């Protein structure tokens, strides 16, 4: 598993470059997103899934990360934006907007990294807002919405 420091270094590099082979960079950014989620899932004592959802392991890992923790859903759209930009880039790598799309993708991946690493330090990140969990309530499995 890639270390968080290594993931951050690659995100810096990919954001700075945001060019080169669009397809390769887009694939790496999705892999970095998966690596971030692997850290979260592993920290919960689970084996990161190898399954895919809508063609992306990233989305399956996000779903796995939400188990018993609805506030993790706060990064659902971030994961979906990564998948969306991956599809945009790989469907037409020569498109003039590819460098911009890769830049956006790198920044979305960084947001996922910041959210997950922030949540690994303070698990309650997100609990207070869109997916509150009563502080007196025992952790119970909840439906992912």
């Amino acid at each position, binding site marked *: 598993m890639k270390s968080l420091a290594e993931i951050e270094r690659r995100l810096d590099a990919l954001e700075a470059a945001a060019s080169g082979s669009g397809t390769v960079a887009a694939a790496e950014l999705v892999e970095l997103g998966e690596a971030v989620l692997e850290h979260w899932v592993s920290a919960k004592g689970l084996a990161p899934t190898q399954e895919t959802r809508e063609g992306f392991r990233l989305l399956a890992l996000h779903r796995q990360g939400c188990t018993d923790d*609805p506030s993790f*859903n*706060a*990064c659902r*759209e*971030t994961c*979906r*934006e990564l998948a*969306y*930009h991956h599809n945009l880039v790989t469907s037409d790598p020569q498109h003039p907007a590819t460098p911009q799309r890769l*830049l*956006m*993708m790198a*920044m*979305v991946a*960084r*947001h996922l990294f*910041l*959210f997950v690493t*922030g949540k690994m*330090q*303070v698990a*309650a*990140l*997100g*609990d*207070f*807002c*869109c*997916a*509150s*969990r*009563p*502080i*007196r309530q025992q952790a119970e499995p909840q439906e992912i*919405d």
Partner: protein
Amino acid sequence: MTTAKDKYQKVAYYPGCALEGTAHAYNRSTQQVGKALGLDLVEVKNWNCCGAMEVKNIDPKLQTYLSSRVMAIAASEMKMDVVMAPCNGCYHNLKKAEYDLAHDPASVEVVDRLSQKAGHATYQAGQVETIHALDWIMHGIGEAGLKQRLKGSLQGLKVANYYGCMYTRPRHIFPEKDKGPGTESTSKPHFMDDLLGAAGAVNVEFPLKTACCGGAHTLSDSDTSTKLVLNILRTAEAAGAEVIATECPTCHSGLEMHQVRAEKKFNQPTKVKILYFTQLLGLALGLSPRQVGVHENISDSLGFLREKGIA
């Protein structure tokens, strides 16, 4: 048959506590935009806290009761059909209370008991419809109606629309969303884009529309919040935005405060301006910067707006 346009002409207005404090500019600009559009706002009498984040996390049923009281006053005392809450936290909590009271008998029992104790009518699910300020303008006036009333224009102002997390999450408390054309999307919300676009703005492709800003952790874990906000600001700038339009007082305050903190603590300055969507709409409707409370924001956008010919 009553249409949404008719129904939203006169609504109960629930500003909530943030709009009386840090987000006074949002309160002021919402009311001014309502006047300019010919929409009536009648403030909920003797309103109380919606239970916000703190009560909700200590005792969610108490939050359900607090939110239900606001709706009960609107329905039973004011005889209103619609409550409009511009604050994402209030909007979210009233929608959550509505959902709980329609689906959870235990919540119904608690709300009934507390309402009787407090001496007011118990709110029954379905008595009022709770909407956001975006719904109010989108369905009460619409893009075409807005265009007819414009006295100015946002003149190609490049805007990143930031909706925050509570406007669309969790999806099950917003049953009216994701119903196809004309309705709001929970995955890619667009009402703010549509309205500001109608007022002349150019909406940039912004992939962090609903991303977490670390809002509630702004004091307990400031560095995480600052880094999340900084990434939102940098992404908006990289997307070509000159302004981030907001519709949530928590997000707005967070973006403004952490923009300053990011520069001071991490030496990462950003130039993008942060304005409530109602402030931008108000300017396009011919209101002055003072009328929409530009002077009440933390950051100073006046010079920029004048330079762009918008103020």
